[in-house]
């Protein structure tokens, strides 16, 4: 019986290990990104919880940011924000 070290690598592109989505930076898909208005923001967390990418981070009480490497610019956060504190702006990445 061969030991693992004597054996070939798995065929290309077939075996994926956990955490690989972090390498798949989907941010380039988008043409819009959210801009947060801290003066209007109430810190309610709606944007963070609705983001399908999970890329909005709650930095402090009324301050959020979107991770542009993964934000696809879908605009759900802006549409859902009860305080209208998020504006989608065009950005070609």
């Amino acid at each position, binding site marked *: 019986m061969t030991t693992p070290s004597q054996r070939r690598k798995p*065929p*290309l592109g077939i075996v994926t290990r956990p955490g690989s989505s972090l390498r798949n930076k989907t941010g380039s898909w988008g043409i819009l990104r959210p801009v947060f208005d801290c003066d209007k923001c109430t810190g309610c967390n709606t944007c963070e919880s609705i983001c399908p990418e999970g890329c909005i981070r709650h930095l402090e009480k009324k301050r959020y940011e979107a991770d542009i490497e993964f934000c696809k610019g879908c605009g759900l956060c802006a549409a859902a924000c009860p305080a209208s504190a998020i504006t989608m702006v065009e950005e070609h990445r």
Partner: protein
Amino acid sequence: MRKMIEGSRAVAEAVGLCRPDVISAYPITPQTHIVEELSQMVADGDIEAEYVRVESEHSAASVCLGAVAAGSRAYSATTSQGMLLMIEVLYNIAGMRLPMVITGVNRAVSAPLNIWNDQQDTLAVRDAGWIQLYGESSQECLDMHIQAYRIAEDDRVLLPVMVCMDGFILTHTYETVDVPTQEQVDTFLPPYNPLFKLDPADPITLGAYAGPELYHEVRYTMHREALGAKEVVKEVARQFRDAFGRWSGDVVEPYRCEDAQTIFVAMGSVVGTLKEWVDAARARGEKVGALKLRCYRPFPQEELREALSGARQVNVLEKAVSIGAQGVVTPEVRAALYGQASQPRVACAVVGLGGRDVTFGTMDEVLSRAREGETDFFAGLRAEVLEES
């Protein structure tokens, strides 16, 4: 031990000797006897496999896919409509590089409904990434299943193997076969030792996603390794000969081809008839030979070139037709000879669809029509039936 048994029983015994962990199949004529025998063997405690009953061939193939992904040795069998229903999963099994074995019992495809033999079904899945071996006799099919697991599970291959076996002609006829002992098979075929498998302790995903930046290379390497599998098929045939003392060719098997001016190329049980006919035709002075195409995928281009380039005429007997084009195997035979200094003419003769007998008369007809210059034709047509059309 030599036994006088049905072809299906011979395959079931071979599969049982390979110690599969999981068998899943849906019954369909003429594959039924194989999986009936296997389920009986499981029920009687003769083999330790788990037999999973399912509601369709799509599910049977899916059960096997999961079983191999989890590190088991798996087996299934199907034919015709069942093969077509499996096709999506067949591509996935090959694409995930999961070694398993399926008996592709050869039967015509509907419509019209026909349960008898031709090879349209397995040839319809030729591009899925499976290695395809075509057996001439029950003994060869028995031997091929034992070889098939060893080929599939080889680290250089990691592709599933389909052993193609003509329905009724082989599955339902009795033949004396030499069934090896469990010890012999255990020595030849060690337990499956997967290179990768689904395991909660070391989680992985298989075949999940490959975008345009990766997929092209994944398919390229799969194709390259499938082409390389040809050497493993040959190597395993030699090792099988050394271990069991039987030889029925590796990727091809030439029969009386050395000085042949005309060589017939064929796959499966019709090769048996063809060899008998070659003897008869040679007795009346025809310089003919036969070339069995034993391994159709990977396609043995170099071996065909070597075996055929000395001939003046090559006649391919086709048990399937690409409707609106020509036979399925012939274009690849012609391509193998393309650009060679010596180029025999290659005729494509479609024979024996839907169980029509292929007889010495059929071979005579192919020989004379090709000699008269016909290149693409159906042999053995019944004029009285065509008159009604």
